[in-house]
């Protein structure tokens, strides 16, 4: 499924746009002008990576110190241990779209518990 995100002109370099689907996806426009889409939720704890520290092709979780590679979703260091999903980005007529991955997302334990009705 291809979902429109926002106009390319509305997403400056160095910024991120959070798409409120479930689970949320974020689109990053790097300082080098590349555009990437990954799952927005850190795999360690419920935090929005769109709020994080974008540097090169990596985003650091806004709460703790794990960095995710926007190209592969790989995580570099604890406390997160699992990668985030990456999604295909398509720009058409000046509008950014993402094609959401069909893989299962790696949600943090607290969020996974909440989604299955547990307490968090």
């Amino acid at each position, binding site marked *: 499924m291809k979902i429109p995100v926002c106009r390319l002109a509305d997403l400056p370099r160095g910024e991120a746009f959070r798409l409120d689907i479930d689970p949320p996806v974020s689109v990053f426009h790097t300082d080098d002008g590349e555009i990437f889409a990954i799952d927005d939720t850190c795999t360690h704890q419920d935090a*929005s990576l769109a709020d*994080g520290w974008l540097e090169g092709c990596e985003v650091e979780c806004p709460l703790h110190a794990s960095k995710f590679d926007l190209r592969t979703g790989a995580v570099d260091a604890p406390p997160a241990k699992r990668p985030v999903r990456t999604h295909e980005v398509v720009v058409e007529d000046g509008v950014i779209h993402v094609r959401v991955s069909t893989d299962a997302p790696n949600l943090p334990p607290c969020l996974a518990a909440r989604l299955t009705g547990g307490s968090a």
Partner: protein
Amino acid sequence: MRAVAVVGASLAGLSAARSLRKQGYDGRLVVIGDERHRPYDRPPLSKEFLAGTLDEADLALEADDEELGAEWLLGTRAAGLDRGERVVRLADGRKVRVDGLVIATGAAARRLPGAEGLAGVHVLRTLDDARALRDELARGGRLVVIGGGFIGAEVASTAHALGLDVTVVEAAPTPLAGPLGAAMGGIVSALHTDHGVRLLCGVGVKGLSGGEHIRRGARGSVDAVLLEDGRSIPADIVVVGVGARPCVEWLEGSGVELDNGVKCGADGRTSLAGVVAVGDCANWYDPRAGAHRRVEHWTGARERPDAAVATLLAGGAVEPGAPRPPYFWSDQYGVKIQFAGHAAGADSVAVEEGAVDDRNVLAVYRRAGEPVAVLGMNQPRLFTRWRKRLAAATS
């Protein structure tokens, strides 16, 4: 370099072992840890683990498929370092010969004199500490937390959510005034009273009272915390959160210079060639502060081993990059608290966004108009922006 030992198997030690492999070291790697556990994450011990929402498997720091090619000597304590023979002596009598050494022995919780052997009295530093405290909190009752610092505040918050009756006792007039300054320390510590947790400030603890001697060698259970002003606070459980001291006794006489932990340069080097130190036991020179600082932050234990290992492998020939400003976080009563920089050097602090009454705050500390630190309460997005600005401004 053919053999490197990392003494300490927590975050700093594991990060050092990882850095060694990442930076191309392919020789013998020995990791020595006095706890019997594989490396685990400590921040959740006072929060999610204590609350029962994360289990021990969630605390593991190593990935399932991670292979560092290291020999793990766990459950054994380093007892000494012989500089001439370059040997680490272990408490169980074994010896490990090394060419390079990473000291990552951390810090140990300070205890309350006179509390030994009294049931119901806890510190919180290790997984075993957290297991014991979790089991006791599950039984409920009256909890008194001695010390209103971050560990004490997080335990109070978690225990309050579990339904316990909680009192926090802090010797200073304002909790957290050291790390946050008095104004913001007062605002953050107001979270206790917001939630009906009693906060007693400006009064020291004289001692603990406990049950009669039940039998020789056992002192029964704690029943009250005695304050210096004569008050007695009834308690079923007491948590002592009064800081930590660096674990460096084993290095006395080794030639490694000690001064509030292991004294290090800005790149982690110690007074002995081929020896670096990282984590809570390491008193690194901070060029920004112009002084040595022993920083007990998770992020320091995670980030500094990269620099220290580069120093070790290059024989001290690398220029350290500018470290990022110190950063730590805390979670209390559902509020995310984040801090970066040094509050001590500030001459002003101002709330830039949010409102103190809502406990939703982005506050910037300045010295002569220049930002030197930033505090966020439930402001992760803005906090990150400011943290980035702070790093750029002071690098």
